[in-house]
């Protein structure tokens, strides 16, 4: 519940950032290094170039959430079909798909993301894609495992017996039964993606035209001593969002797991 409220708040701020703040986050509006709460119109102070930190935070939410959501979506789009086919058809399909997945898993994923972003050059699209590319293998594995176990369940046999075709069984009978763990995983992946984007930004591999939280922290680390608020606020923003997503993930986990919901975690 807390998670949902927090997340909705963040999303709200992200969507309405242009309405709340008249200036773009790049606009230099005041003298640099204005401390937070020193000036009413600039509640969170200004950064090294005199830009409004509050506006940056709001606009940053857009990028961070966008990267998180889209990369998760892309990862699901790669991982779910691959895992589903591998798990359902087994044999060579499985072998091939899993070897392919293994390639991506043997390269440490942060390192791979760095290389990918460097190769494609950091733009919002390439960063999102790189994060998706490093995050899909666990999805594929999870879906595969789930599909494999669901495939062995007897209702699949029953459907076969009813004369349904294989693709139809996969889509209509098997996949719907793998949805809950995927949803739970996805909520955690969004969180991880936001962290990953911020880490890339920190290393200077962010999109220079997109204001994100990671960018803010990366830009602020050199002045962490003299202007604590510049890295503190975006840091807190990331923590809150990731926390919210985690809480939602755990909530879903409990809600979707009949064993746990029955126990009632009062």
């Amino acid at each position, binding site marked *: 519940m807390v998670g949902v409220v927090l997340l909705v708040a963040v999303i709200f701020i992200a969507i309405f950032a242009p309405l709340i703040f008249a200036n773009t986050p790049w606009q230099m509006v005041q003298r640099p290094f204005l401390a937070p709460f020193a000036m009413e119109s600039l509640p969170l102070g200004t950064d090294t170039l005199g830009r409004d930190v509050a506006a940056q935070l709001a606009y940053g939410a857009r990028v961070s959430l966008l990267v998180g959501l889209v990369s998760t979506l892309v990862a699901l789009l790669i991982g779910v079909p691959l895992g589903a086919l591998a798990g359902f058809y087994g044999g060579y399909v499985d072998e091939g798909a899993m070897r392919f997945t293994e390639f991506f898993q043997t390269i440490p994923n942060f390192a791979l993301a760095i290389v990918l972003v460097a190769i494609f050059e950091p733009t919002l699209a390439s960063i999102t894609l790189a994060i998706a590319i490093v995050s899909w293998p666990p999805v594929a594995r999870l879906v595969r495992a789930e599909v494999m176990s669901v495939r062995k369940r007897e*209702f699949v046999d*029953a459907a*076969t*017996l*009813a*004369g*349904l075709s294989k693709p139809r069984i996969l889509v209509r009978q098997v996949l719907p*039964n793998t949805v809950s763990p995927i949803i739970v995983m996805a909520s955690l992946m969004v969180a991880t993606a936001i962290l990953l984007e911020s880490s890339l930004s920190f290393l200077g591999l962010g999109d220079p035209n997109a204001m994100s939280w990671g960018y803010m922290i990366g830009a602020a680390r050199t002045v962490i001593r003299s202007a604590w608020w510049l890295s503190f606020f975006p840091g807190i923003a990331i923590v809150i969002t990731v926390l919210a997503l985690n809480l939602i993930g755990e909530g879903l986990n409990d809600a979707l797991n009949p064993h746990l919901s029955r126990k009632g975690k009062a």
Partner: protein
Amino acid sequence: MSTTLSIEHLTIGLPEGADRPFAVEDVSMAIEKGEILCVVGESGSGKSMTANALMGLLPPGVNVKAGRAMFEARDVLRLPEGEKQALRGASMAMIFQEPMTALNPLMRIGDQIVEVFAAHDRYTQSERREKALALIREVQLPDPEKIIRAYPFQLSGGQRQRAMIAMALALEPKLLIADEPTTALDVTTQAQILKLILDLREKRGMAVMFITHDFGVVAEIADQVIVMRMGKVVERGSATEVLENPQHDYTKRLLEAIPTGKLPEARQLSETPALEIKGLRKIYRTGGGMFKPVREVRAVDDVSLTVARGEVLGLVGESGSGKSTLGRTAVRLVTPDGGQVMVGGTDLAALSDEELRKQRHKVQMVFQDPYASLNPRQRIMGAITDGPITRGIPRKEAEARARELLEIVGLGADAASRFPHEFSGGQRQRIGIARALAMDPELIIADEAVSALDVSIQAQVLDLLRELREKLELSILFITHDLRVAAQLCDRIAVMQKGKLVEIGTVHDIFLNPQQEYTRKLLAAVPGADWDQQGAA
């Protein structure tokens, strides 16, 4: 005789949202030294709760509301945790319902037994081992030296159950609580375990509270019987009193519904075969990955049989003898390694995938596990109509037929819009039957189609099947491990052992004049066989 345990006015409260406020209400009972008290009753009547309350192992949210349980002059329900701990395992022990999961899978059997001594600080290290070994011998586990170092997965279900018993008996408790310790076991293993408990009672004079729903078992071992329903004791008395002269309506109904050993009259069978199986073989190979040697199981080994049109062929045999595999091969959910399966004259193996799909409707199956065979995310209507619609029957028509079938199996048409989890086990099994019938099959493989049913509902379903057989000339391969049920419904019976067909013949031949040693053993192992004979007489 002295009273070992006396329960007085026990009431156990259930948490909010449960189906009733109290799991058990105002229950009293007493067990004398060396006596076996059988607690019977319908599923969910509070038998396990009573047992768990005695052990202090009630699940969270479930609490003792009133009453006391006097054991060794103390009220065990109100002992502090520390004293309860000392009591558990030492003077009061319990055997749980499910032997497959009741042992720690990662610990050697020996260690799990030794642990009991350790928990109560008895004996020295080496003595404990000796004792454990002795116990294993006592419960007649084969090759004790090996068993003591084995892990649970290396043991069969019956062996695990015996290991459990060994643990329960380790400290020679005064009271043994056994909660349906044999439901998961096949008849032969069940018989061994019952004998063991009787022996031990003799030797050690311990009191036993035995929970079961099987009247055969009651007849075999009980001194006293208590019948429970909806959390209340509805009848009590000595075994003979209750079995032969039941007072309460519920008890009477229970006893009436028990399939009798009475054999139906033989019928004239048609000549045209609905199913012909020739030289069928299926070998399962498992493992063979990293670190694992390949393991072969000959699940079905050179089996030939035919089912005629309108015939019900019973397939019996102990657990793991290959019955389900045979059934699945017949509907071609499993591809055989050899042999032929002809359904209504066509060889399913000769068909292409696409043609096979079109022919599927001819043979249908009622699955052994009704819950698993229903998609938890699909409404019942979908589950039943998927097949017919794929066959090309218009949706409207298919749905109308589905409602009709649901009525026929006694569920009511409104069941169609519910999800599987909203039904009880027995209801689900009937949905499975309706689904099979919806395809207008010529042959139904009914795999333990009535095992999950209460005796009374069981009778209802058997009636339905008989009726269909008559009306539609439906052939049925009726797989069961319950010989009594088989006797009631089947025309002929086939007996399987370790993948082989050991005997096949009319019901009368098999029951009255079994040819094979194995068949005789199966028949003899049916619990309460003697009492049953009387009933049949």
